[in-house]
């Protein structure tokens, strides 16, 4: 009987405690301001982001940055975005364009036009590499900022090249001849991340760029009818297929990115096409004495495209949610994340490039990164795909499958182009797919 009377009392006490807990919000003014940041934990990890968060907290008393990461952060964020309870700021593979069009992201222009950290005479916008803010502009506003500056290059080990007497190719025929020589020397020419056929898209678009003037290259980006049926695109697809069938490491189509890159790091494959995150992603696997360096996708003899243009641009984008509890504080944290001071530590800790202009000036950087800087400095302009971020269904259901079939030799380059054109036509007809106004060739900045 005594027990029975005690139970309701206990329940009431527990309920009271729970209710009391609910009223203690983490961002209660008494506890200071909390900015929640969720970051994709991929090739660059999140240690650098955490270190910046701690520095930000020290220089902004009363502000706490709750920064966390996960390799599958997007899967954790999707339900939170749907129930309108997102973190304040994130960098994840979410459908940025869908979020922008649905009004789920917060415009960053107020922060971009405010004085930058470290150099108040310049706005934050003015401190960034020209053009990197162009990817996610909608109705005159900017909704995402990149935290990395990327470039699509071919990585190799200088020491291995010296050992076998191989030379860095400048043209496509030199490149394929080099692949033949590597095979004759018993080394697989190219590692490939076959479980993610999308890795081939940047290479294929680079080859296509070498063949055609930018007017035609950007026609495809604008989903102009017939763009994928361009004979030069079919030719580029054929070149990509030949590379895959003849020069990819045997078994590559069943390898994940880490497995294939491990083959490259171990010297069983001589080269790999990848972005600048490769070194950081494979830092535990790259052996001592490995002299990592890179070269751009070689020019194609007789091609009408700019031979010095480079596939690259902003990457690892950050955005603030419109439903964020602290959107202005989150924008300010982003500004700090992309300050000159933070970008110096970014370049040095992660061995990669920052979108902050001049962030490598005066720094001692690794030979691998210097090699990427040389490639960037030697380029006439950078260009980047936006089909993948704009047309999700086309990317997921058409492009990935068609590429896997092209690379495995299961479809001809002409059939591949037809499939892409059909997918593009479906996207053009779908009223739910947001299609920005044709952008043509962006002006050189």
């Amino acid at each position, binding site marked *: 009987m005594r027990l029975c009377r005690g139970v309701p009392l206990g329940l009431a006490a527990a309920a009271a405690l729970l209710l009391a807990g609910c009223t203690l919000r983490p961002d209660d003014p008494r506890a200071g301001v909390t900015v929640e940041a969720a970051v994709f934990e991929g090739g660059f990890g999140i240690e650098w982001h955490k270190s910046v968060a701690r520095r930000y907290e020290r220089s902004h008393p009363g502000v706490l940055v709750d920064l966390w990461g996960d390799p*599958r952060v997007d*899967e954790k964020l*999707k339900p939170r*975005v*749907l129930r309108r309870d997102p973190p304040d700021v994130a960098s994840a593979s979410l*459908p940025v364009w*869908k*979020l922008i*069009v*649905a*009004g*789920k992201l917060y415009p960053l222009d107020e922060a971009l036009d405010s004085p930058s950290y470290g150099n108040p005479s310049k706005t934050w916008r003015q401190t960034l590499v020209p053009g990197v803010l162009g990817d996610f502009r909608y109705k005159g506003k900017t909704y995402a900022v990149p935290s990395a500056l990327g470039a699509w290059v071919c990585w190799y080990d200088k020491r291995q090249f010296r050992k076998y007497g191989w030379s860095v190719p400048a043209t496509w025929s030199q490149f394929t001849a080099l692949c033949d020589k590597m095979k004759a020397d018993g080394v697989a020419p190219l590692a490939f991340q*076959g*479980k*993610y*056929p999308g890795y081939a898209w940047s290479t294929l678009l680079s080859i296509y760029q070498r063949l055609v003037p930018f007017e035609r290259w950007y026609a495809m980006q604008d989903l102009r009818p017939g763009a994928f049926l361009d004979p030069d695109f079919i030719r580029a697809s054929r070149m990509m297929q030949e590379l895959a069938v003849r020069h990819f490491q*045997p*078994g*590559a*189509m*069943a*390898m*994940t990115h880490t*497995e294939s890159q*491990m*083959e490259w790091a171990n010297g069983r494959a001589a080269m790999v096409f990848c972005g600048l995150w490769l070194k950081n992603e494979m830092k535990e696997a790259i052996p001592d004495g490995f002299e990592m360096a890179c070269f751009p996708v070689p020019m194609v003899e007789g091609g009408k495209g700019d031979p010095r243009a480079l596939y690259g641009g902003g990457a690892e984008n950050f955005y603030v949610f419109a439903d964020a509890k602290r959107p202005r504080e989150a924008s300010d944290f982003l500004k700090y994340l992309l300050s000159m001071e933070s970008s110096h530590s970014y370049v040095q800790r992660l061995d990669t490039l920052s979108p902050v202009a001049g962030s490598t000036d005066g720094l001692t950087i690794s030979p691998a990164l210097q090699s990427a800087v040389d490639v960037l400095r030697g380029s006439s302009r950078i260009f980047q795909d936006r089909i993948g971020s704009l047309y*999700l*269904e086309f990317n*997921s*259901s058409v492009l*990935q*499958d068609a590429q*896997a079939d092209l690379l*495995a030799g*299961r479809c001809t380059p002409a059939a591949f182009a037809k499939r892409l054109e059909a997918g593009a036509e479906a996207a053009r007809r779908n009223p*739910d797919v947001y299609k920005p106004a044709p952008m043509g060739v962006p002006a050189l900045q």
Partner: protein
Amino acid sequence: MKNRGQNVFIATFLGPPLLLYAVFVLLPAVNAFRYSLTRWDGLGPATWVGLANFRAIVASGSEFLPAIGHNLFLTFVPGVGILSLALFFAYSIHQRIRGGRLYRVAFFFPNVISGVAVALLWVLIYSTSDVGLLNGLLKLMGHKQPIPFTESGRLLWAIVPMSIWSATGFFMVLFLAAMENIPETYYEAAKLDGASSAVQFRTITLPLMWDVLTTGIVFLVVGGLKFFDAIYVMENGRPSGSTHTMSTLMYSKVFQEYNVGYGTAISVMLFLLVLAATAASLRLMRRERLEY
């Protein structure tokens, strides 16, 4: 008074779980039917489109039809192997072969590993890099090039031995329990009449365990139609048109393409197909029940 107290007591215990079930299972399931009739990206407002999503699902060129084909493949191809081996092992152990207890544990063991862990294990077995067990063996046998077993074009076939390995033990235990319930006297009488082991299996064992066999087939059909985890793991979260099953396609549409209306229409189709397949299995396997 006593009855009323009893009812309150029962309601106290049944109420919370029923409430949780209604909130977290029934309500979302009913909502799925509603969403399936809309065009919705999960972010903005939904637009009512009637049966348009279902028409798109069954239209020619839709990804759904090949996905059903993959589900049927993953139901019947490993299913035949699983049922045959499970019956064979169960009957062998039931015949008191030497080491029967050990086999019972050994064959059941893969079933205690989660589906994701099984898939990860087989990814390593099939790997084309140095860790790949199967390609390592093939290399020892003189095969020069590794075979990309988990490449999209081959993946469904690669899943067949994995499914057989992981599921046979469960069905073996299920069938063995049914066999052990059959009175020994039937077998003794059959032996006196000179019936061979095969005849005893066909005329005594199989008819008397028919209900359990039917249950096993229903499990296999439902499992095959819901197939998700191995494809998702072995395709690194990005299944292709040659590997999508109905469940992975639904996931991809909802969470990768944000086509929530279409994705939930797939889930409604999946529900209807599982219901129909279960009913068909029970109907096809229906026989006169033998009492003993």
